[in-house]
């Protein structure tokens, strides 16, 4: 178990170094950082001085080392467009994205798992067929279209929910601005969360359904029936628990994609999160922000992967206790 954790940790470190290298290369190859910082009327001598001050004349390896060390301390330099430390810019946007992503993931799970269980158990009912048809729509419609449709119907036409922004936020301990504690914050969250979570929800539903069908065919379910256990104990105990092993893995990994794909939803709903910040950065070639965003997303992916692996181990005794005997 400890060895497993250490191995995964080393792997994660490797992944992060590679991503750091890619981020670092952006600085060198996408535009000249000095050009971004100075005006057109700056003299070549001044530019050279700045270049020296920024360490851009040092050996590449040294520059990379410095970049990694700084990144490890959350120092990503100064944003070209905002002239502010990137770390604090991201920190101010992070809560919006994380809250949106987690609520979306929760929505996807809370709706997707029961729908999957239902469609797996009652395969031939019209409701199950209806769920499958809906899921097809959810998978095939692009996110931005779903978002725009929701805005059009729910916000513009019905006027029930706000169409953009995050509503009123409350600052927690001075570091985390949350929209979860105000009415307008919660109302603003609903549409973006559905938009972002819909694809994952249908994915989870189909996954649970498939796994459920698979598990219901296994010998241990047959044996559980032969022992006379109640339908409830079989379906929601024996079957569901076995179904959840892969669901945990996939959902966990999907959380990373949710955070990454929040870019689109944040754009559609003008959600003040990291995704919106990143898009603005791309438009303005604000490389420090782009690099930091890339590293952060990679870090979240790696972190989630790590947690999922541990969860997986916690659920499945075959991995936890090892030594499977035939």
């Amino acid at each position: 178990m400890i060895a497993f954790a250490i191995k995964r940790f080393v792997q994660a470190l490797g992944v992060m170094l590679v991503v750091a290298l890619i981020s670092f290369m952006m600085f060198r190859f996408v535009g000249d950082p000095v050009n971004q910082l100075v005006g057109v009327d700056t003299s070549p001598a001044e530019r050279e001085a700045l270049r020296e001050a920024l360490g851009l004349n040092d050996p590449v390896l040294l520059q990379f080392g410095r970049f990694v060390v700084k990144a490890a301390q959350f120092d990503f330099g100064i944003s070209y467009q905002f002239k502010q430390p990137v770390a604090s810019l991201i920190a101010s946007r992070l809560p919006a994205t994380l809250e949106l992503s987690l609520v979306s993931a929760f929505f996807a799970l809370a709706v997707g798992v029961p729908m999957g269980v239902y469609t797996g158990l009652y395969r031939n009912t019209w409701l199950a067929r209806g769920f499958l048809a809906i899921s097809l729509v959810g998978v095939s419609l692009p996110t931005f279209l779903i978002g725009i449709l929701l805005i059009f119907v729910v916000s513009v036409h019905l006027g029930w929910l706000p169409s953009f922004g995050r509503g009123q936020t409350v600052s927690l301990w001075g570091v985390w601005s949350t929209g979860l504690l105000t009415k307008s914050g919660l109302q603003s969250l609903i549409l973006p969360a559905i938009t972002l979570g819909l694809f994952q929800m249908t994915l989870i539903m189909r996954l649970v359904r498939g796994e459920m069908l698979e598990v219901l065919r296994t010998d241990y379910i047959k044996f559980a029936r032969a022992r006379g256990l109640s339908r409830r104990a079989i379906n929601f105990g024996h079957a569901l628990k076995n179904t959840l092993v892969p669901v945990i893995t996939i959902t966990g990994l999907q959380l990373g994609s949710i955070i990454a794909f929040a870019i689109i939803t944040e754009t559609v709903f003008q959600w003040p999160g990291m995704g919106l910040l990143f898009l603005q950065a791309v438009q303005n070639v604000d490389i420090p922000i782009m690099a930091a965003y890339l590293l952060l997303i990679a870090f979240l992916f790696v972190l989630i992967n790590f947690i999922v692996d541990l969860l997986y181990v916690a659920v499945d005794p075959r991995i936890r206790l090892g030594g499977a005997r035939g």
Partner: protein
Amino acid sequence: MTEPTLSVRNLRVEIPTRRGVLTAIDDLSFDIAPGEVLGMVGESGAGKSITGSAVIGLLEPPGRIAGGEIRLAGERIDNLAPDRMRRIRGRRIGMIFQDPLTSLNPLYRIGDQLVETILTHQRVTTGEARRKARQLLEEVGIPAAETRLSSYPHQFSGGMRQRVVIALALAADPELVIADEPTTALDVSVQAQIIALLKRLCAERGAAVMLITHDMGVIAETADRVCVLYAGRLAEIGPVRNVVKHPQHPYTIGLMAAIPSLSGDPDEMLAQIPGSMPRLGAIPPGCAFNPRCDYSFSRCRAERPEPYPAGTSHAACFLHAPEALRQAPSDILQAATAAGISLPNTVDGAS
């Protein structure tokens, strides 16, 4: 005569498929007396497992019972509502499947699976159920039962897992135990132990056993009576000694001749039955075995035989029909007699 624990009458199981309805079990009748061990034998695909599933009410859809009756201690169980049938499963009929490696839920502790089963069928407290679970594990010969309760299935060997499966199947003291090839998936070295254990525990409890296997050695040592299936139909049924030593159906004769003798003489040639069992969709008219039978005659190709008395057994073969001596050609009668088939002693059905 006491009421049989299990009585199957004219059972017919159909499986609707896209290419038509297959008849997996056709007009099968047999009884199992209290405490009796009935061996079910037949080639793979003969319908042994389907018979077991039909009895315990777990036929896989779209398979369904299309005719006949199944009675448990006199009470009809083939037409019970699902919830009432569920109460019979595990409590009055226990079932053991072939593969102990996949019969246990990998995510549940052995003890929890036992306790859950006991609590389903008996009004006891969790504490009592746990004590009973430990006692069951001890009974099936698992050392350190108390600590093993909190182990997971993957921590047991195959033989040990089958012992756990037996404990689970017997947890509520069922009056009938269906064991579907309980040792086929196991190491040869532990097969005999598991069969002996199963037989002892069922005998102690007075449970009737339907032992499905294609291992005639197991049957010879364990069963009281044997039921031979061929293509979903009864071929022969009778006391084990007679069926093994003096088989009366040509198919059984072939089946017995195909067993390597226990003395293990390597020079002894195994008699093989030519051809193979027909698929369900392609069962020939008349007797299902007639194309492979050395003793078939015109009637075998035209009509379906019912089980006729044949010595102390019953065999579904026209050689045992009262009219046989009159209908079958004399060379076939001679060959049959030479093969040990005891022909009826009347010339026609008038006796």
